[in-house]
């Protein structure tokens, strides 16, 4: 169990900087997810914590100890890789035992530890098998077992679920989450999947182009995104953004209509009004909210609800209709969102303007 503190962390390859001086403090026992599009520096950051990449500038402290110049083995961390990194030429038991390579335990004690971990992960029946005889989910569990067996001070996960199919991914997500609750170990999890980030994290770190955009709990990020990128990245389908101009305290939407803008917005004239598809529905929300009309272009039936894509003034807006009230394609439709569920961004800087 340990804290991880990152300060002014920089990674450069030659003259190209890929991580631009980030700061992050991870509490003991916290489950932190680094999320962002590929190339945002999330994996590089994780690999620097692990000691697999050299740190160009700044500092990483694990449990208060500066680890910049420590070998990976001396940092007492464990890592789970995207391709599992379990060895095809040895059995499951031997693979898990690799995690105890440096431990001073006797052979029988090691064996007992391996069996105990296998028990926890439901691998007891598979200990003598080769990895080639395992399914993807079982291989992933072996990789987690090798990480667990040592009692590391922190777990690092580098997109561990990306190679699994959708159903297994959901299942492993829950298993990892449950393990974290049981072990309470500090965990850093890297993913590009916002659903994984939302469902697993205590705190999410949104990264883009080597910088941290926002750090917060899943709900904070969902409710109070600091900029357009985070707003669109978190939540599925992505948030609708409607250009508007402020005039006399009202925001005139380019798709037609206007809304009463919050009074704090007076500083700028060109803004973006954001509305999540879940908040945009055909149900009339009264006069104060957002109202957009258009023709239905695409329908995505999900059962519990139906996502409705409408075309309005050349822009596609996604809303949602209750599962059994499915509109028809080509019909005109008006969508409403309540005023308190709207987001406002500066069009030029893409920063959030008034956070409710």
């Amino acid at each position, binding site marked *: 169990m340990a804290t991880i503190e990152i300060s002014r962390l920089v990674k450069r390859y030659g003259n190209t900087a890929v991580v631009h001086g980030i700061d992050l403090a991870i509490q003991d026992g916290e489950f932190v997810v680094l999320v962002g599009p590929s190339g945002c520096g999330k994996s590089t950051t994780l690999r620097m914590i*692990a*000691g*697999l990449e050299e740190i160009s500038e700044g500092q990483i402290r694990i449990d208060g100890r500066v680890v910049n110049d420590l*070998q*990976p*083995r001396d940092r007492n*961390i*464990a*890592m789970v*890789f*995207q*391709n599992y*990194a379990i*060895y*095809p*030429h*040895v059995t499951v038991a031997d693979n898990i035992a*690799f*995690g105890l*390579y*440096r431990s001073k335990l006797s052979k029988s004690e090691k064996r007992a530890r391996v069996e105990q971990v296998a028990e926890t992960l439901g691998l007891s029946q598979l200990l003598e098998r080769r990895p080639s005889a395992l399914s993807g989910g079982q291989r992933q569990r072996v990789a987690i077992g*090798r990480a667990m067996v*040592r009692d590391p001070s922190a777990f690092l996960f580098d997109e561990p679920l990306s190679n699994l199919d959708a159903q297994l991914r959901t299942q492993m997500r829950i298993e990892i989450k449950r393990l974290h609750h049981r072990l309470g170990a500090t965990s850093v999890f890297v993913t590009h999947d916002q659903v994984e980030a939302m469902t697993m994290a205590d705190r999410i770190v949104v990264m883009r182009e080597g910088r941290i955009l926002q750090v917060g709990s899943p709900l904070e990020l969902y409710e109070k995104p600091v900029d357009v990128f985070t707003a669109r990245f978190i939540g599925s389908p992505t948030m609708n953004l409607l250009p508007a101009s402020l005039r006399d305290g009202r925001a005139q939407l380019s798709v037609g209509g206007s809304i009463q803008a919050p009074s704090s917005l007076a500083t700028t004239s060109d803004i973006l009004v954001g509305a999540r598809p879940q908040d945009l529905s055909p149900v009339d929300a009264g006069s104060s909210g957002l109202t957009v009309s258009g023709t239905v272009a695409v329908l995505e039936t999900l059962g519990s609800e139906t996502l409705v894509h409408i075309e309005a003034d050349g822009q596609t807006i996604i809303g949602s209709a209750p599962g059994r009230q499915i509109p028809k394609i080509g019909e005109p439709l008006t969508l409403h969102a309540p005023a308190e569920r709207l987001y406002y961004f500066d069009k030029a800087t893409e920063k959030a303007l008034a956070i409710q």
Partner: protein
Amino acid sequence: MSIAVHWETAPSGLWSRMSLGQKQLIWAWGFLAVPLLFYVVIRFWPTFQAFYLSVTDWTITRPASFVGFENYTRLYADPLFWQVFRNTFLYLILGTPISLLISFVVAYYLDRVRFMHSFIRALYFLPFLTTAAAMAWVWRWFYQPVPIGVINDILSSFGIPQQPFLRSTSQALPAVLAPAIWAGLGFQIIIFLAGLRAIPTTYYEAARIDGLSEGAILRRITLPLVKPTLVFLVVFSSIGFLRIFDQVYNINTNDPGGPLNSTKPLVLMIYQTAFSSYEMGYAAAQTVVLFLILLAISLLQLRIMRDR
């Protein structure tokens, strides 16, 4: 469109009544037939012919007549054969491990080098492209006494006495073997590099996190995972050393296989029996023995090194 119509209006005929699988089979065998025929005529038929010749006394001037196992008993009693047999095995048991060890070490470190990687690799591969005759001549010069021979030059500058190399019955075989090993290194290095590259880097990263030392990583991860490559190279290079010929023939053209047969391998003996003495039947018997040795050793190696 017109083509489709054409096909639809021509349902008769054997071809159109065949299933897709049958058609694929016919195409496959159609393409295979040419190389297969070539192989049967050029390789297999002469091979079987050699088996037959080995039990005759054919000498070009005389028609072949059946002599039973006479050629084999003669071979068994021939002291030259046992000398040659010993030489051939020396080439094998020195050549294979030494060449594989060197090429693995080179490949292992070359794999980590980024600086001029391709250039260095090409440099190692170059001897593989060079003709054995040219190479043998160059090495022959290397082995000359001072002042022509480079090696003796270097030895004498350190005050070490002159070595006879190719003129000595004890030094000639290793001296012939050295360029043979050197010539094959490039190929083996390339194959080893491919084997090493196929190991995912995360295996090494996971090992570093688990705290394995460099030696332990080599022993417990790298070596087991390049084993298929190693098996291939052991068999491949063993066959190569058992069939060594051009290196030996060219490095000592005045007396191939000399001095006093000390470097003569089996293939050279076959060559001389067939094309100097024209004892075709006897030479055929020797090729059969070589074939059996190659077969036995390849099978043995595959069996020993196969994954249990």
